[in-house]
C-alpha cells in the first residue's frame, strides 16, 4: 500500500513523457521563449517603455514553464510499448552458483 503510494508520488514528480512528447516539448520551449523575447522587445520599443519589455518577457517565460514542465497528456500520446516478456527457457536450465543449483 505504502509502496504503491510512493510509486505514484515518484511518477508524478518525475513526470516522464514519451519520445514524441520530448521532441514536442523541446520545440515548444524554443518557439515560445523566442517569440516572447521578440514580442517583448518590439512592443517595449514601440511603447518606449522598458518595463513593458521586462513584464512581457517574464510572462512569456512563465507561460513556457507552465506549458512545458508538467507532464501534460499530449506529451504522452505515443508511449513506446515495452517488449513482451520472454519466457526464459532458452539454453540455460539452471544457474550454478558455488555448486548449488539456483533458479
Amino acid at each position: 500500500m505504502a509502496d504503491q503510494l510512493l510509486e505514484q508520488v515518484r511518477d508524478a514528480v518525475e513526470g516522464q513523457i514519451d519520445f514524441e512528447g520530448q521532441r514536442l516539448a523541446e520545440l515548444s520551449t524554443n518557439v515560445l521563449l523566442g517569440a516572447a523575447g521578440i514580442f517583448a522587445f518590439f512592443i517595449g520599443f514601440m511603447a518606449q517603455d522598458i518595463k513593458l519589455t521586462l513584464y512581457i518577457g517574464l510572462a512569456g517565460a512563465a507561460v513556457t514553464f507552465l506549458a512545458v514542465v508538467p507532464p501534460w497528456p499530449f506529451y504522452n500520446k505515443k508511449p513506446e510499448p515495452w517488449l513482451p516478456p520472454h519466457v526464459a527457457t532458452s539454453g540455460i536450465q539452471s544457474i550454478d552458483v558455488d555448486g548449488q543449483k539456483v533458479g
Partner: protein
Amino acid sequence: MHSTLVRIQNVFGFFTTVAFSVAAVIALSTFIHPQTPQASVALRNVQVVRGRPHYYSYKKEEYAHIKFDLDTDLSTLFNWNTKQVFLYLKAVYPSTKPFEPASEAIIWDAILPGAAAPWHQNHYIHPTPKGTKKPKNSKTNQAKSHMPAGIIKLDSQRPKYQITDISGKLQNRTNVHLELGWNVQPWVGALLWENWKDYGMWKGLKGGKSEVFTFPAIGAKAPKKEKLDVEKGKEGHRLMAGQEQPRKNN
C-alpha cells in the same frame, strides 16, 4: 526532456539565453536614438576664502566658491533605456607642475531620473523659475521636477561643493574653466560618459565649457563687472577670509 527536472533546467537555460539576447538588443537599440546635447555654462561669481576642512582641523586651506549660470538641453539623452543621468559641473585648472595633468573638481551635481525610474529622494528637483505659480499643497508636484527631463536653466546658482586644491592653495590660479560632464546610466548596457565627438546619430556636446577665468586673491572683489550682488538674504553664507570653516552642505 524526459523528466520534469530536466525540462525545468532546459526551459530556464533557454530563458537566460533569450533574456541576455533581448538585453543586448535593447542596449544596441539606443544607438538609433539621436542625441543632440547642448549646454551653455557661464561663470557668475568666484571668491576664494580661507577655511578649515573640518572644525577641529589646525590646517587652513583655500576654498573657491563658484557661482555659475547653467542652461542645458539634455533631453535627447533620455531614451527608453535611460535609468538616470548623473550630471556634474567641474572646475578644471592646470596643475602647478607642467608635466602633471590638469586638476578637476566637481562644484555641482544632479541626478536626473529617466521616465521609468521610481521616485528617489536624491533625484534632482529643478527650482521653480521666478514668476511661475506653484500649485499649492499638491504632493505629486512637489516630488517631481516640473521641467522636462534634461532641461535645466539655472541662474546664479550657488555651488554644492566648495573646492580646494591638494596643495591647499587656490588663489591667483589662472586658466580655470568650468566644464559640464555626465554619466548616462542605462537600464541595460554600458555606462556612458559625455562625449565631444559625433558617433553616427549621437552628436557631441555643443557648448558645455565656460570661458577661462582666474581664481582671485583672498578677499579680492570678483573681477567681473557684471552683476556681483549677492542674493538677498544669502549674505550670511559668504565666507570671510580667516574666519569660520566653510559652510557644510546638507
